[in-house]
């Protein structure tokens, strides 16, 4: 089945803004969101909170959120907080 994907580039300088953009796009008709984290080297607790909210919203709307280009340091943070199981990961 073909999927309608929403694409969002995450800018490291404003991760929160990009995540907010992603949340808004989840309100549309897409059944998948792809967030490109390639330029993100670090993530802080505010951004992690926003990630969790995004995950909650995606679960409610049955939308898959795929994170692409997540570096291993950020991936580890998400793993420590048990967030990885709430997203899918692509390269």
């Amino acid at each position: 089945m073909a999927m309608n994907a929403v694409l969002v580039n995450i800018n490291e300088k404003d991760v929160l803004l990009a995540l907010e953009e992603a949340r808004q796009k989840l309100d549309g008709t897409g059944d998948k969101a792809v967030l490109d984290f390639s330029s993100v080297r670090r993530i802080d607790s505010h951004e992690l909170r926003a990630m969790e909210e995004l995950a909650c919203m995606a679960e409610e709307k049955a939308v898959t959120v795929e994170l692409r280009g997540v570096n291993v340091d950020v991936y580890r943070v998400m793993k420590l907080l048990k967030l990885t199981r709430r997203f899918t990961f692509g390269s």
Partner: protein
Amino acid sequence: MIASETREPNQIPPVTEGLSAERIAYLDGLVSQARTASAVFTQFTQEDVDRIVKSMVLAGLEQAQQLAHLAVEETKLGVMEDKVIKNMTATEFTYNYIKDKRTVGIIREFPDRNLAEVAEPIGVIFSLTPITNPTSTVLFKCLMVIKTRNAVIFSPHPNAWRCSSQAVKIMYETAVKNGAPEGVFACLQSHTLQDNAYLMHHKDVGLIDATGGPGAVKAAYSSGKPALGVGAGNTPVYLEKTADLNNAVVDIIISKTFDNGTICASEQTVVIDSEIYDLALRKFSELGTHICNEKETKLLERTVIDPQTGSMQPMAVGQKAIDIARFAGLSVKPNTKLLIAPIQGVGRGHPLSVEKLFPVLAVYRAKSVDEALKVCVDVNHAGGLGHTAVIFSRNDEIVRKFAEVINAGRIIVNSPGSIGALGAVYNNLVPTFSFGCGTGGGNSTTDNVNIFHYLNIKRVARRTQNHMWFRVPNQIYFNMNAVENLRQFPSQSTIIVTNPALEHIGHVDIVRRYISPETHAHVLVIPDAEPEIKVVMEGVDSLNFYKADQIIALGGGSVIDAAKIMKLKYESPEADLEELAAPFLDLRKRVVQYPTAKINRAQLIAISTTSGTGSEVTPFAVLTDKERGRKVTLADYSLSPDVAIVDPQFVMSMPKGLTADTGIDCLTHALEAGVSNYASPYTDANAMQAIRLAFKYLPIAYEHPHDEEARSMMHNAACIAALAFSNASVGVNHALAHAFGARFGVAHGRANALMLPHVIAYNAAVPAKFMPSPYQQGYVAHKKYATVADLLGLGGHTVEEKVKHLIEATEQLLDQLGFPRSIAELGIPREDFKRAVPELAQIAFDDPSWRSNPRMPLVSELIELFWQAYEGRGLANLSGAAAKQNA
């Protein structure tokens, strides 16, 4: 907040008793916040961390006085000025220790050991802090937490909450301002024991660091979580007669009055040698100490010690000496800073012998060093195990003895106990505000707790390239008439060890011919059998009698082995053969060491008269212990002969059977050394050459005993194979042959022959169990057999084909030499063999020979190999025993 996910298996169940849902939500929120902070923190670099730490240190120093005021005001304990010092020590001295230490990524490397240590943060730490050091402990722990990229939740002592939480606030604001993750520190707003219990059992708390009273420490250790619990002490002090008394008295006063004695490492009972007792008390008195008389001591006891529990009264903790004196009804001078109470013993009958966190010091007059040490041990055991002890002495021997008999994590010498134990001020102890008390104090460490206790340290162990060796005798002379070289070894007194047959056929005369005429030569004839202890000891008597400086061993393996052991016992009479024969796995790591001290010196020259064992160059010797009915195998390079003479004239008359048996022993040595886990390019060169020579010349030497070239080459082959297996050892073939040969009285070479094709097939197959081997890369036995096949020109395209051809060539050689094709052909009934096999397999498994075999034999596989040998050749194939076992 990041939501907690479902609890993972094997977690400690939560303890929610007595907590409302709101309270649980509050506590979970703190932990969740700390957990997020610690996760975010994992992304920080060493430079990030060090920058934050430095800013916190500066903030702590800036606020040291304010926090000290706050602490004294709130707790009513201690001395403000001293608390300033404590706060500054907790920041400045700690910083000085940690500033250059790596706590991120690779923290230490040991290139010579191929090891590296990598830091892994713990995550969330739950930390209890005490009333006695309420701000300094917090400052210290905050620095530890940031330096190690953890997060912490503090639970301060309830009566020190305001000052402790203020210290947390100062540290937190500074840390976050300088980049630390939000939520990295938290402090319980108010708390109960239930809160503590809940957090101690919380699934997301990684470590409990409990600095406080015994109750808190016990609760921490009882939680089932990893814990650093450090608690009470009872510091004994030995003031020994050689001490610098002026310094000692001042140091004790400094320490015991520091912050009114609230540091748990401070002095509690001073044991003073009788010779200096009166003078010491006079000096104490001169410096503002009140010495209590008997009546005052009683009054003091009743005031500061709880008669029910035998412990100090809380109301006295951290109070001034004059106030305590006033409570007790003592009349003292206004400037009194310390109260000293003489005691006559330690224990419940002597209440002041316990811990007293206030400026009251017990003193004891000791009539001897022995008595003093015993009283210190008593104090140590009266609540102070594992904590701190102090000695003032210039006598190193007494300091050493004190350190031996006192169980304390810190033994402070000639300096104040409390400040000394904190580290980095009077000595090079690691600075701390948490004293590990070891198992004596119910703690997990005796260390001064610091950053490395807040880290999981991961060790990266790279594979090491083990050193190998190739050790052989200094000199080997070979080819026809090599015995003439005996001329070049001058000797005053030589013993020729040989057997009756060799003497009878004139070999001894040949040897005598080439010994210098000035040499006194004596012949020692021993039985032609594996040497017994009795025979060896008789030989040693001869060596001693003739004061021999040279031993010539002329014979086969038995004679040369006997001579090796005679030399050992002659040079090192105390050598215990039983002990030296102890089993070992790796020669370099063996438990037993051969003697290096030698009272006599004798050169051993070995002249072999068979072409098989290679004993003339090996470091092995086998001895028979008839009394116990067993063989003793000795192995050490010190047993290797000094000179080997490989002269084929001594083997020209070997009968055909012996030629075949010894020749196959030689081939087995070479094949086993070739595939051994200890094989090296050096042993391979020898093994391969010996195999080539044996395949080519053994049939000729067997069929044409007088063929000088064939005899010469087989004699060389045996020696060359021995050079290989002396360094690479043998394998499972020898283990099987030893067990079978001994049980059924079959010659060693013959027993080897019966097993050989089956063992090649077995080793060439994929092992059911690989043998651990740091010396080899991968499994190569089958490839090395293929290399042998290539060397012999046997043909084949694949490894499997080449191994098959090698097995066929081996079987063909054995047929040429007239060996039986099976154990059954020896006439051993199947039923007899069947009964013997289980025990044979056990004996073979105990045999050290297979330890270097490329494939680790299972007992079931040894049984299978025995049965293959029983059924006979032609059955061996690549699938071998493993396939049969699988079937």
